[in-house]
């Protein structure tokens, strides 16, 4: 008796799906639905503004007034503007020095962290801290460290008898530039170190064992095993680092605001200053657009120069 009542319940479980359920099971429909939010959002707030920015660079739009097409006038004006050229120079200089510094120190730190160490995971967590904390807030700390009157570094140097007077960190052009570059290196080391550490951990220990048996020195092991195996990751990390250093805004804006006398403006801070507080949207957009060729060049250079190795080894470029 009981088995007879159970049998119909068994067949009932399998229902015909409704029209809506069948629609959601249609693969083409599902692909469109799944891609729509992400692609729609990126199209509206990324691709469209990118195009709009290029268009704005050729107009004389200001805040509150629609611009008209002026052709290359903005660029002609900028090319005669020494402040713009200074910003271009400092952007390239800042990116070059900071990238070299970040990668030299970051690689060194990664090699140190790759050794056999006690409390390794805590160390790794501490090292990442400068990268987690909002850049503006650590930049404010650097601003206070670089204070002309109450700089802690000046105090230490005077106490140690190395200097007689306070160090002038941000009130003359060149010292301000070096101070900013140092702050950028400080902030960039953790990212480079942790990414490269991940790369180091993928290198098979048997390679080092083989090299040791062949009598390779530590330098030879680094030069012929570690470095070549690290190149693919190095290429990607460097591409990112160059792009985000070149377009950096926060550090310079918080520490010097482009001063003294416009000597530390990066292209991004100059674009902001002309565009938003200055109201010259067209001119600001032109400065921003002028960054694009540098970025494309830097990306292609670091990618092709460094990633070539990966293709030679025949790995899939996923």
């Amino acid at each position, binding site marked *: 008796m009981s088995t007879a009542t159970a049998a119909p319940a068994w067949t009932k479980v399998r229902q015909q799906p409704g029209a809506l359920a069948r629609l*959601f*099971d249609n693969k083409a429909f*599902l*692909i469109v*639905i*799944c*891609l729509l*939010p*992400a*692609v729609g*959002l*990126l199209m509206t*707030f*990324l691709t469209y503004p990118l195009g*709009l*920015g290029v268009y*704005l660079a050729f107009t004389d739009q200001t805040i509150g007034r629609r611009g008209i097409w002026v052709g290359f006038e903005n660029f002609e004006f900028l090319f005669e503007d020494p402040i713009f050229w200074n910003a271009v120079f400092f952007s390239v200089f800042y990116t070059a020095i900071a990238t070299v510094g970040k990668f030299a*120190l970051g690689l060194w*730190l990664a090699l*140190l962290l790759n*050794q*056999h*160490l006690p409390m*390794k995971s805590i160390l*790794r*967590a*501490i*090292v*990442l801290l*400068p990268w*987690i*904390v*909002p*850049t*503006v*807030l*650590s930049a*404010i*700390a650097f601003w*206070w460290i670089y204070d002309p009157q*109450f700089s*802690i570094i000046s105090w230490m140097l005077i106490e140690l008898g190395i200097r007689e007077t306070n160090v002038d960190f941000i009130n003359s052009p060149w010292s301000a530039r070096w101070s900013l570059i140092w702050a950028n290196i*400080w902030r960039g*080391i*953790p990212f480079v170190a*942790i990414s490269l550490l*991940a790369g180091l*951990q*993928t290198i098979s*220990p048997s390679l*080092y064992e083989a090299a040791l048996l062949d009598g390779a020195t530590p330098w030879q092991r680094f030069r012929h095993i570690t470095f070549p195996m690290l190149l693919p*990751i190095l290429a990607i990390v460097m591409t990112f680092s160059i*792009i985000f250093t070149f*377009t950096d*805004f926060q550090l310079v804006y918080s520490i010097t605001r482009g001063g003294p006398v416009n000597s530390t403006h990066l292209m991004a801070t100059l*674009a*902001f200053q002309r565009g938003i507080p200055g109201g010259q*949207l067209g001119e600001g*957009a032109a400065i921003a657009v002028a*960054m694009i060729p540098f970025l494309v060049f830097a990306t292609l250079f670091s990618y092709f120069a460094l990633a070539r190795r990966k293709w030679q080894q025949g790995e899939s470029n996923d």
Partner: protein
Amino acid sequence: MSDVAASPGNTNTASAAPEMMAWDSKSRRVVTLYVPLACFLIILLFPFYWMTVTAFKPNAELYNFAEHNPLWISSPTLDHIYHLLFRTAYPKWLWTTMLVAVASTFLSLLCSTLAAYAIQRLRFRGSQYVGLAIYLAYLVPPSILFIPLATMVVQLGLFDTPFALILVYPTFLVPFCTWLLIGYFKSIPYELEECALIDGATRLQILRRITLPLAVPGLISAGIFSFTLSWNEFIYALAFIQSSENKTVPVAILTELVTGDVYQWGALMAGALLGSLPVAIFYSFFVDYYVSSLTGAVKE
């Protein structure tokens, strides 16, 4: 990516053996390893130490290096923190920042989970090109976009509202999260989904009951990363928000606390410290997810 990130311990102990052979003398190990490492840690942490010390120092000590050792506090005070919490709009800024960070994180997680699922699991013709396009979107820096976005935000009537930030932040969060989640979905065996398909599950059921629960570590990593990135974002918040009460913490500290010629260093450092603490605490709970998302994204 995933197998390496999951087992860093094994590779280390294995690679340690040949290293130990080379570094036979202990003093050499101290000079080449511990001393540089200590220098790195001191340099990396010093600004935070200085920030903390300044935040708890009374003004009399702060500007008098002759009588007080600046590296230490003789009579700690909570004056600066009290000033910050009760005489400025700091709690309001903190609330706005939290709201914007949480909302934009949820929005971008939703978009990127669906997109990553479509690209990685519902394979279709040209799916890898969509993936590549989303990856390239990550390489477009905010410094290029903020001027045109500012004009768009004004036209949409969103200027000076948190909604502008909630809608704009996903532009740099979605590419990153999608990229990360594609990697996670890739590590989930396809056979599991095929079994479910044979059992008569619909695709949405598969996503909800099988793929998403298995991708939870990836979702957590992406969420933490998005939260930190939107908490730290500066240039959009600076350009799109004007009124004091709608500002986010990083912008407000720089524009509202820096007034006049005399900087209130104590209050500034207290603000910087309190603004960093939520992210730092949040981060310390999920360090492993964070590291694996960072390294996973680089290796993908």
